[in-house]
């Protein structure tokens, strides 16, 4: 497809379960970002990849959050032992380079019960 694709679109997890969120960036996009967003707020930065290298993970809220992009294209955000406060929309965005416009996916809405 032409845009950034995220799956699943919705995920309901029981507290304590592990979840994995997938992001397929636009082909050829070097930069990939993960964000966590509460409604009506700006996305909160989680982590940033340039190709397969994770250059910044300063926004990950705890060591339960882990992201990877092993081949420099598809990325997975994993959350272990989910907590209720993890409930949010998780957005992925990609761009050609650091100062290029971000292209956002439609997000994965995670609800932890």
């Amino acid at each position: 497809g032409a845009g950034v694709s995220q799956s699943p679109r919705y995920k309901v997890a029981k507290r304590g379960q592990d979840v994995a969120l997938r992001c397929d960036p636009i082909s050829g996009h070097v930069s990939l970002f993960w964000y966590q967003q509460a409604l009506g707020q700006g996305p909160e930065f989680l982590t940033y990849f340039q190709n397969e290298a994770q250059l910044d993970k300063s926004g990950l809220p705890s060591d339960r959050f882990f992201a990877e992009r092993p081949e420099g294209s598809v990325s997975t955000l994993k959350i272990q032992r989910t907590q209720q406060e993890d409930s949010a929309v998780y957005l992925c965005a990609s761009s050609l380079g650091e100062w290029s416009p971000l292209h956002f996916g439609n997000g994965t809405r995670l609800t932890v019960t």
Partner: protein
Amino acid sequence: EDKVVQSPLSLVVHEGDTVTLNCSYEVTNFRSLLWYKQEKKAPTFLFMLTSSGIEKKSGRLSSILDKKELFSILNITATQTGDSAVYLCAVEGNYQLIWGAGTKLIIKP
């Protein structure tokens, strides 16, 4: 298919000029329209619009929504070089955010 279209894609003006950025949408079950300013890593939230005809204002920035014609505008008056950024429009519908491609605004001194 839901979509959000922003125009122009890019804009170059001189400091002090006034600019108007456009966002039109076709989104099922519209809930809100949001404007963001993208700098570096993360977009900064500007406005959230839910009702037609009510202008939201913050300093030199203002925005208004027309739910009948399905568009919103973002105005920036007396532009400054610090306003240079990509401005993103997003529309919430069916519990998902649909993003526009952004308008890249460059303010020349």
